[in-house]
């Protein structure tokens, strides 16, 4: 137990007890502590188990022959209740303290202090079969690619138009169910510019495996420039148009009778789906998350003229 406490202290280190910061940082801290403690507990318990199994093997002839279970006896228990409760209490303490510790982090994640000085940007994320649509406060809508500034909190209001999806950006540790008729809120902060991949985490139909999107993180200036050039009308027009096509394509995908994901060649997105080479053409990767899909998604932003 003492060792565990020391280890715990070591991991928490000089940092404050309840981690905050970006969601990736928060997750990483908690995950590491859990992984460490989980491994320690698992190894100790399993080693103990194996040791006892070996020690009390039959050939070692431990204990007396009498007092063993007999055929036809009324079931009753063996002794050793004190040790049982001691171990139980110990495990309960570990679990309860870990969970209460993370609860404070949950409170932070659910209701974070404003990070940085800029106001958060609110983006609506809409799941469709099988692509993501992002709507900015000015009404500008993009498909497949979300452009956000670095070091600024992005509030995501997630929903879906057709079936239950789940929007997640694994590297930024943002995730929320996308439910038709409901809105779920989450947030994320990207500390580095670059391209991140978004996935769908709830089975949503034949195109689920390839329902990815890109999160492109740019500097604040780049974002301002980009955002200033977006307008409500034009973007919407494009979005609507290509969204119609995509919906048609999606309908094709959604018909399992069609056999497989055999996209029609009407929309740019489908062209991407149809050509596996194009999909693996541009390996924009990030350390540890070498995902060719990220690259693909970036070429698939629905804003392109159809």
């Amino acid at each position, binding site marked *: 137990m003492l060792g565990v406490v020391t280890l715990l202290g070591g991991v928490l280190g000089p940092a404050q007890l309840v981690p905050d910061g970006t969601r990736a940082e928060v*997750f990483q801290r908690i995950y590491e502590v859990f992984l460490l403690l989980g491994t320690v507990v698992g190894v100790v318990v399993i080693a103990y188990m194996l040791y006892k199994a070996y020690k009390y093997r039959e050939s070692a002839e431990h204990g007396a022959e009498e007092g063993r279970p007999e055929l036809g006896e009324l079931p009753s228990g063996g002794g050793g209740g004190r040790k049982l409760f001691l171990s139980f209490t110990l495990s309960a303490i570990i679990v309860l303290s870990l969970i209460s510790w993370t609860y404070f982090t949950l409170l932070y994640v659910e209701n974070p202090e404003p990070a940085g000085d800029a106001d958060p940007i609110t983006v609506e994320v809409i799941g469709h079969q099988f692509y993501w649509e992002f709507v900015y406060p000015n009404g500008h809508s993009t498909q497949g690619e979300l452009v956000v500034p670095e070091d600024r909190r992005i509030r995501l209001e997630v929903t879906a138009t057709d079936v239950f999806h789940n929007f997640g950006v694994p590297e930024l540790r943002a995730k929320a*169910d996308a439910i038709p008729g409901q809105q779920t809120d989450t947030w994320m902060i990207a500390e580095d510019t670059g391209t991140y991949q978004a996935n769908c985490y709830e089975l949503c139909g034949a195109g689920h495996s390839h329902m990815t999107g890109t999160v492109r993180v740019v500097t604040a200036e780049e974002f301002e420039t980009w955002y200033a050039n977006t307008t409500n009308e034009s973007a919407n027009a494009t979005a609507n148009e290509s969204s119609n096509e995509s919906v048609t394509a999606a309908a094709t995908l959604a018909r399992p009778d069609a056999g497989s994901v055999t996209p029609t060649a009407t929309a740019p997105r489908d062209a991407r789906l149809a050509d596996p080479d194009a999909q693996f053409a541009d390996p924009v990767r990030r350390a540890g998350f070498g995902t060719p899909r990220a690259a693909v998604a970036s070429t698939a932003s629905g804003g392109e003229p159809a």
Partner: protein
Amino acid sequence: MTAHDDTTHGETAGSESRPDEESDARTDGGALEPASGHAEAHDDGHDDHHGLGPTSSVKRWFVTTNHKDIGILYLVTSLGFLMMGGALALLMRAQLWSPRAPGAGPLSAFAYNQAVSVHGLIMVFWFLSPFAFGFANYVVPLQLGAKDLAFPRLNALSYWGYLASGLLLFASFFQGGTFAGGWTMYAPLNLPTFTPSVGGSAAVLALMLFVASVTVSSVNFLTTMHRMRAKGLTLRRMPLFSWTILLTVWMMLFAFAALLAALLILSADRLIGTTYFAQNGAAGAVLWTHLFWFFGHPEVYIVFFPALGVMAETFQTFTGRRIVGRKWFIAAMVLVALQSFIVWMHHMFLTSINLEIKTLFMATTIGISLPFDLMVFSLIYTMVKGRIRFKTPFLFSFGGLLLFIIGGITGVFLGAVVLDYEFRGTYWVVAHFHYVMVGGVTALIGGLYYWYPKITGRMYDEFLGKLHFGLYFVGFNLLYFPMFVAWETPRRVFDYSEGMTPWHRLATIGAVILGGSFLVMIYNLVVSAYSGEIAGDNPWKYSSTAEWAVSSPPPLENFPGVPTYGSGRLEFLGGSSDALDTTDDDGDGDGPAAAADGGETPTAGAGDAIANADAAMSESVSADAAMDEAARADAAMDEAASADAAMAESATADAVTGSAVREDVAPEPSIPADEAHEDGVHASHASIWPALIGGSFLLLFLGLSGYTGGSFPEGAMGTAYAAATGLGFLAVLGSLIGMARERFVGPAGPFGESWPFAKVSNMKTGMWIFLASDVVLFGAFIGAYVFLRFASGWVAWEPIPNNIMPGLINTYILLTSSFTVILALEAAERESRKGVVASLLATLLLGLGFLGNKAIEWEHLFHQGIWLSENVRASTFFLTTGLHGAHVIVGLLVTLYMIPRAWSGAYLGESEPIEYFGLYWHFVDIVWLFLFPLFYIL
């Protein structure tokens, strides 16, 4: 079972042929040998009487109602489904060998989704629980000291319903592709808009049939376990495997009722076009998650508890130590069983539920993990000071516990909400629940080896058993551990990031090894069944439960006498004298006493067989409606069909009560088997009707699966589906009537321990238990209504009927009819034939008045253009009150059956059937007292 005859021969030679290490270990088993020899002869004599035939005849397996035969059927069938689910898993792992572009790999995207979905459905529903219930069927009555389950034909019916549902699921692959929306069936992907194949509906209906048969089974087991324990075997003293099964069936009773409600609603949405889960609804998708996970979380324990029971039994036997802290072990399990119903929202942390609810469910989730700590430590400490023999059953149980520990620790990660947010929908979850559930399977495989000598009378090959364990354990960890490492992979996705490829390949290799290990097992078990060493009655040193005190395999009626623990040890009373030699000498004197109060002839009305027939009829009404509607597409008829899916269920459910009544033919007359036989009143062991009912339901549901959006499709296929529906319906009707008319004598008392139902007959207990599950069914329907109404603004939601008068009148009508049933009961008690007939007739007329009034009301609504697919308000109104209407119809059909019987004087002085019917009828009335204000006034 094929070794049956040899066993008899081998009886005396038993000790020589036992494995060497065990031969000197039996301190007390030897005394039992003569007893079992006797029993064996006994058994053989009876086989002919009951038309069962030898175990080698095919016919036996279609007609048997014996719990041991059915246990074997469950085991074999579930292993068949394991192969099927395993084949799908191997297909998935083949697809996951590399990240795949769309269309690449062995499976298309649609095929992959089907494989994922049906793999999950098969493993959770058609393999795990039925596999565990194979043991439950075989072992629990033996451990309890019961000759069979309380309702043997219903037990057979459960099995055939299970097999029929599995065959329907298999057929669904060939109906334009099966369901492809995941085993969790999230809405609205589960609707025909997104999963339009006929096979999709077939899979949903298959699951519904499965759930109905589980409900039948739950009622049966609960009645048996609470009513039919041997004297001295109080609940506290019950062996741990039986304890886990008891808690499992209690959880099943309630959890599966919620699933039944979810599936009835889903079928209504798919087949007749209600709009509960429609994508444009405000909360349909969330409603599904609530309904599904309210069932889904207890389901985790439902599949795991039996494995825990096997662990407890095998740990005790193979360590030679009694379970440490046994009563705390039981207390922990009871706590888990209760708590399992208040943790479901931890599957929904990322939906729109608020922080307070998340906090609450985080707390309950952590709370439910703690009792498991205690159980794990209890098992581990049981090894201390033991004499552990590493036989195959113990290796599997030990390995299962080890895997469960890993599954448990990784589960704590998921209990931390912040981590759960990120693990949701990833392979972390996949790896975690496979460690838990397949960890459970590991222990159950141990159970298979443990009870194999009891079931077959022969010993499996120990070397091959250990080889199986080695391959299994290595394969398991190669398969699932890499999933923790590659946890960032999203679930149900075959286009994962390339960096994960090595881990996924490792998993695929592990899957092949794990799958291959089962070939070793099948070879071992099949060959050993014919040529294994004769096992003897009790091949395991330190085993203690009653199944080891009888021959292997046990005789048809299990025991050489009445089993009792009255003296503190197991004894068999009233049998032949050698049977009494068991373990102690005292207590012989109880034998005659136990039998003394027998002798009454079976009395309780065979009358209630009606319930069967009428259940069938209610079905007929609904199915008719469906067919008419197909032909005419006429609005009024269509509504009647709304209740269709609902009724299909309630018919099944009521068939439960129906035949339950029937089987109670000899409920109280307390004739110990031996006495009974001498009198020529034999307990029955054969009936062909359960198998026929199962087959009929298969045909009916196959036909119904073609029914989409309120009609059968055009063309030849549509005609075929319509014909199958019609024929299936007639067959269901015919076979239910056949079963109702069959004379069948169930196991008779007196039973030793019946707490807490000592004063209640089996039939009445079964009825109460069934009604308890019906409460949950209606509760889920009402809950769904309230939930949807809140979501769309409580006030903005106008009740559908614009006039409350019909509802108000119906309330009075139903209340009055409850009163007339009481009058009938009272008349029967004072033996007034006219009084009984008049009261029942009044009940029938009032019920008809209720239905007529409702028909007029609905007709008016249809004329106003209000139809069940109109909007979600209309859907909830028609479906919920339709379900209630179906219950009323069932009740009236029972009444219709009882009136002519009452006329011929059936219930005079024997009013029990009227009482049982009254319970049902009052329940239906009470439900209406909730529905009326909810749907007419508020």
